[in-house]
């Protein structure tokens, strides 16, 4: 149901609005990161906030990710609720200790006596020839390590609600937004990501997957950009008389295995779509979560469409060859033999 006068927002706007609304009601929330003040974030997710909240609460940082993410941990432990930006997820290698050994573990190390309520937001994804140090997703890398929740919205509605939920969560949340869904003027954007977003503050539950298209013949599981590819593939498959169900994971940690398993129990077929590297990542986890639970429901071996295990190439023809897309999903379905 689309009501024509409903307000549609990009993910970038939805993120900024969520932060804005929360900052208005919660004085402990502040934003820290590179180029998030005057520039409004390279991917637009803090645009307009500097004017309203000033440079103390919308705080540009030096290029010192270890220090400012570590500082966010210290501030969070001291009663603040920082929202901190790692500009590209690809940069995690210069600061991951502050993320995975401090932010993620101090709640546990302290036996729950010290909380670390902070949000680490970071951009993911390629498709625009930004090459191998600026195009990765690294979903599996973050989701593998304990102590941090990990979410990845596929549309602006979820983007706003997840951000609000993340800021209110007493645990650290990693918020991974895909550049190709942000709705930036200078970067191509997936239209399906720009959807109606309510004015008022609301939350989307962290840890709950969504069935974004119901179907009976195959389950396509993905997150972020892949959800749109899954939906496009489902539309093509529908023309062939195949009724695909599409599951948007929304959250990688916690992972909503029940929803995935229920869907596959219904359809008997599973295709996982992931823009992160193929091996040791999300695609394997989803497949293992289904198969370790019950193989009797499967009518065919599960398939995965993920980024091959190669650094991301620059040249368009090579990059596009590697990326998941709807055609690959449709083809994968075609190859699924009945067991």
């Amino acid at each position, binding site marked *: 149901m689309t009501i024509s006068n409903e307000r549609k927002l990009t993910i970038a706007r939805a993120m900024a609005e969520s932060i804005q609304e929360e900052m208005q009601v919660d004085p*402990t929330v*502040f934003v820290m990161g590179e180029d998030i003040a005057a520039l409004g974030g390279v991917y637009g997710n803090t645009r307009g906030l500097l004017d309203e909240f000033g440079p*103390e*609460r919308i705080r540009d*940082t*030096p290029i*010192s*990710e*270890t*220090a*400012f*993410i*570590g*500082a*966010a*941990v*210290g*501030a*969070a*432990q*001291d*009663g*603040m609720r*920082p929202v901190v930006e790692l500009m590209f997820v690809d940069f995690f290698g210069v600061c991951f*200790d*502050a993320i995975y*050994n*401090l932010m993620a573990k*101090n*709640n*546990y*190390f*302290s*036996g*729950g*006596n*010290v*909380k*670390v*309520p902070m949000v680490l937001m970071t951009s993911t994804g390629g498709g625009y020839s930004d090459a191998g140090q600026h195009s990765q997703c690294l979903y599996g890398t973050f989701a593998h390590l*304990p*102590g941090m*929740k990990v979410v990845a919205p596929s549309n602006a509605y979820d983007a706003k609600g997840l951000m609000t939920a993340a800021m209110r*969560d*007493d*645990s650290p949340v990693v918020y991974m937004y895909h550049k190709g869904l942000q709705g930036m003027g200078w970067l191509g954007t997936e239209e399906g990501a720009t959807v109606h977003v309510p004015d008022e503050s609301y939350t989307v539950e962290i840890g709950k997957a969504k069935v974004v298209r119901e179907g009976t013949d195959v389950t396509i599981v993905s997150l972020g950009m892949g959800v749109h590819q899954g939906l496009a593939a489902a539309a093509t498959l529908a023309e062939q008389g195949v009724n695909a169900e599409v599951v948007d994971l929304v959250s990688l940690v916690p992972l909503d295995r029940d929803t995935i398993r229920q869907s596959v129990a219904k359809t008997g077929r599973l295709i996982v779509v992931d823009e992160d590297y193929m091996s040791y990542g999300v695609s394997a986890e989803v497949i293992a979560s289904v198969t370790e639970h019950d193989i009797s429901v499967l009518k065919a071996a599960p398939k995965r469409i993920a980024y091959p295990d190669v650094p991301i190439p620059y040249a368009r023809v090579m990059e596009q060859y590697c990326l998941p897309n709807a055609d690959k999903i449709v083809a994968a379905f075609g190859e699924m033999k009945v067991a």
Partner: protein
Amino acid sequence: MAPTPEQQQWMYRMMVTSRKFEEAIATIYMEGKTPAFNMADGPIPGEMHLSNGQEPVAVGVCAHLEADDVVTATHRPHHQAIAKGVNLERMAAEIFGKKTGLSGGRGGHMHIFDADVNFACSGIIAQGMGPAVGAALSRKMQNKPGVAVAFVGEGAVNQGGWHEAMNLAALWKVPFVCVIEDNAWGISVAKGASTSVANNSDRAAAYGVPGKRIEGNDPYAIYEAAGEAVARARAGDGPTLLEVDTYRLAGHFIGDAEGYRPEGEKDALFEKDPIPKMRDKMVADGVATAAEMDAIENEAAATVDAAIKYARDSADPSPEDALTKVFAA
């Protein structure tokens, strides 16, 4: 600015408490580890880094701190924790891996967290820096009192995160003090083999903040320098970098054969042990009588005994407790 007699007594009491605590830990650590030493065995398993010798740094600095002030400590945290007022019984219980420990046994000796006195640790070198600067920022933004102190070893100063945090603290002028405990060694690597300058206090120039080196492992000199640094931070004048010349009387961890130490180094260190030195000075200065000093020592011993007993008597956690407290309740 010299410590008052009461402060001197407190400092001495904390130094002795720390020393006796670590002596007890060192003894108990060997239980169950003989004849074959296996780190995994006994009532206190895992790595054990003792701070004996370095007590003056902790007391000289923490004499200026309140419960409300923030300290981030290192993998060698006992002296700092004790001087900061961490609950000794629950810290002992944590080191014994007991349910009553500060973290219910999840953290252990390298992860001492006591929220009541704003004390936290990390086992990763230099990684207390960012959180301390962040806590200081939090106080500044909230207009709340309090300073944050990060203790690091001299080896930590060559870590990138140290540099980043110093720059951030100076840039944002937050109430922060970095205290470097220069014990001359990073495990087996001598300072001169890791550090391109003789004095890390000279590195303060790279951030436009005051830097000072304190020689002689002297609690009085440390007290004075730390007092200035903390006052500066409280006044809103920004961070200070202190490097304290100190030494560890033990190995890097218990079990370290210390083959890297030059011949005779250790004996010389024991000659300089700061605890009898302070005792002698206090008595000589008339700050306390020998009997009063004995009393302090006896009280410290009793406190330590009680903490160890508490730890020993406490129950183990349930195995399944391992699965809880991953996320905030």
